[in-house]
């Protein structure tokens, strides 16, 4: 039981330890540490003021999650300053995830975050294969990606339309 004032989440991703160690040793151009004190809400968070862009080929698509490792998809991208762990998050649908392939070039707009001694680059927007994917809102909130929706409208399934194939 930890009793420090603010607990870091322990990293138990043994399979990724070596890789993370290697990544963490590579300085990022936009590396920052978590903010502290007033102005911060709950724990380390996305800092839109520190946004940068990273481009490079995808070296690995990491989908296997381990407790303590930031949630969801990660892309290991070879940038000018070394391999960067791009955190993409848990809310992309499988179709989108399947589009990420090793060797493909990707451009990522996001912000770096140091978390428990490890460096991550939190993606806000990804561009790959001519397709742009919004991962986070401008304030850094992860966006839930679901079915395609028609902007400004939503299907309203009225009670008198139940059981119909065209609702």
């Amino acid at each position, binding site marked *: 039981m930890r009793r420090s004032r603010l607990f870091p989440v322990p990293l138990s991703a043994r399979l990724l330890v070596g890789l993370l160690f290697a990544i963490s040793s590579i300085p990022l151009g936009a590396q920052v540490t978590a903010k502290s004190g007033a102005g911060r809400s709950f724990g380390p968070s*996305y800092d839109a003021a520190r946004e940068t862009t990273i481009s490079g080929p995808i070296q690995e698509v990491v989908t296997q999650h381990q407790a303590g490792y930031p949630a969801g998809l990660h892309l290991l991208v070879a940038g000018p300053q070394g391999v960067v762990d791009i955190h993409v998050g848990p809310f992309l649908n499988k179709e989108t995830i399947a589009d990420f392939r090793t060797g493909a070039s990707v451009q990522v707009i996001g912000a770096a975050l140091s978390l428990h001694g490890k460096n991550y680059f939190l993606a806000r927007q990804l561009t790959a294969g001519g397709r742009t994917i919004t991962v986070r809102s401008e304030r850094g909130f992860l966006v839930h990606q679901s079915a395609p929706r028609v902007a400004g409208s939503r299907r309203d399934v009225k009670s008198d339309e139940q059981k119909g194939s065209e609702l």
Partner: protein
Amino acid sequence: MICKSHRSFFALILSLFVVLTLTILTNCSSSNSSTPPPVVSIAATSGTPQSATVGAAFAAPLVATVTSGGSPASGVTVTFTAPSNGATGSFAGGANTATTNSSGVATSAVFTAGTTAGPYAVTASVSGAMAPASFSLTNNAGAAATITPTSGTPQGAALSSAFTAPLVTTVVDSDSNPVSGVTVTYTAPASGASGIFASNGTATETDTTNASGVATSSAFTANSTVGSYVVTAAVTGISAAADFGLTNAVTLKAGDYTFWLSGSDTNANPNSSYIPYYVAGAFTVDGTGAISGEQDFVDFNYVVSQISFTGSTAVTPDGNLQITLNTGNVCIGPGSDYTCGQIGSTSAGDGQEILNVTLTSLPSSTTSSARITEFDSWATAGGQLEPQTVPATTPLVGYAFSVGGLDGNGTPLGIGGVIDVDSSGNISGSNGSSVFDENDGGTLLQAQSFSPSTVDATPDGFGRVTFTLNPNAASGVPQIVLVAYFVNGTHLRLVEGADALVGTTGGQAFAQTGTGTFTTASFQGSSYVFQAGGSDSSTNGVLQVAGVVTGNADGTTASGNVSFNDLTSFTPQGGVAIASGAYTVDPTGRVTLTALTDNATFSYNVQLYLDGNGNARALSMDSSDEFVGVSNQQKGSLNGSIFSGTYAMGVIGVDPISFNEIDAVGPVVADGVGSFPGFVDLNWILSLSPGPTFADAPVSPATFDATGTPGVFTGNVTGLDVTNCQVYSPGGPGCTADAFTYYLVNASTVVGIENDVNQLTLLRFELQ
């Protein structure tokens, strides 16, 4: 030289010789077939049929007689052969042959029954015999040694109703052979929660095991006392009885109810995680448990408005209740998908929603209330069921509200405020008592007004009204439609309807007392416990918060204690004290709390919307977090010792692997000293684990420090950790004792939050 006549003579002599030779040979052959060899046969002449108890020697040896040509054949070896498996036996010393005596009789060695009961044949064979002899033997089961419950446990039934299944036991001997003809005595408690058997109308019944060792009770009917108990099934001579765990439960009392759920369904495309949905509705249940009602449903892909449904109630085996709602809507239930509403939709939902229910109402109450969780394979959710009293007309007061969920882009969204329905029934905004705030993914709008807006003057037959809210044009917020179901004249359950906002949101509203007249004194000196879920801009996109915030007596500063967890970081068990903060109170009842901080790990802003009766809705107003929840004023003693009694425990969580929702509900019994064991029905259908996604699992041990800081105390809960508990994750290390902080509202309501990395978990305890 031989003449022709002489050649004919020699030919004749040769022919005669050949004929004579063949004749002799033929005669010789005929002479052999007329003296056949003697026929050898073998017959069982003693020792069949017979039986012996498993493991015991048969009383008589197996005796076979061998004859040859009808005469005893002596000195012949006879081989006895028993089955190689199943019911069988063995010969003493392994000797399975015997030699016939002068009478042709072969007698086996002592034959002993094996450990498996049942009939079988032992054969005796001898060389030359056309067929073996057969001995019919039977191994009889031994004495009854064990009785076990076969079916009928655990079970629940409504008071004074028959349990669905009879109580069935199986009696076996020490070798696990079923024992027939054994008298089994079923005994239910003589007093308290119990029941009676149909055969004799008493709490005791005897039944006899059949050939399979099975004894089946007559129908068992619950008496009128609520509770769990054990019916024993005993056999004379067997020390350990079979126990049947039964529960007599109160079902929903006839009447009108509202219900509300927030959760995640499986309609994402394809299987994206954590897609929220909200349901609000109302129904009537009659004296037979039959249900009819109306509900509104919203998820990220579609809105289902004002659909009618029927339903039924039942008691689950663990004593919870279960409500099955049949909407008939293809957008709901297993089989539905995100295409619902599109041309060419493939959605084919069965329209069914299954809700598991733990009552918070006393058995003697004329109405029911409960914590509920959706417990089907299509969606998981948590919420509440409350008795409904619909006002004749929509009360002309202010409504403190907040709703949370996602906006149309899938970004976390929270909206809160006060909707003032003026004396004309309009929401004009001109009276200054309507106000709203919005937190859309960290983009904040505060103290916004509504342009002329409306609400239905009269609720429909199920207490449903629609608020059509038009935010002021400058705010840029599109029209918001909130469908509301009245719980009563002061409390409404909300779900977003079809609107231009296209959010996926739900929440609650409280009708205010003193609309437009709130002052600093309305919050000054009072403490509100809050509990909320949402999101932040950290790595995981999930956030749970709980705490207590106090408006200090100075009228300007705030204090309290807060716990949060986003699975990236979390506060320690016991929470963190709010070292400084400030508050103001608008006449609308809108409390603005700013810069609440411990000066080290957090700083946050939050709005509370007071109802003037000790309830409030909460909405965070930070650029890096968004949460929406409920808040209740602390009242009465705040010592942990008042956490005592039977509580319905509602659970909403997020697992740390797939980051998907967990919901559970179940009863726990708090002793006021430090323990509250119980069980939950838990739904983790969005799990990536191969284990069961539904489970009825114990929550034990569950502890709390009754002597801790008044109003804020700590403890551990074992049994909710889905990624470690083996019931949910086979092969896992086992349930852990997760760290929790509890915030006491009053003796009837306690909230809890998990303070570790194992999982996000919010608890809400409501006293029965």
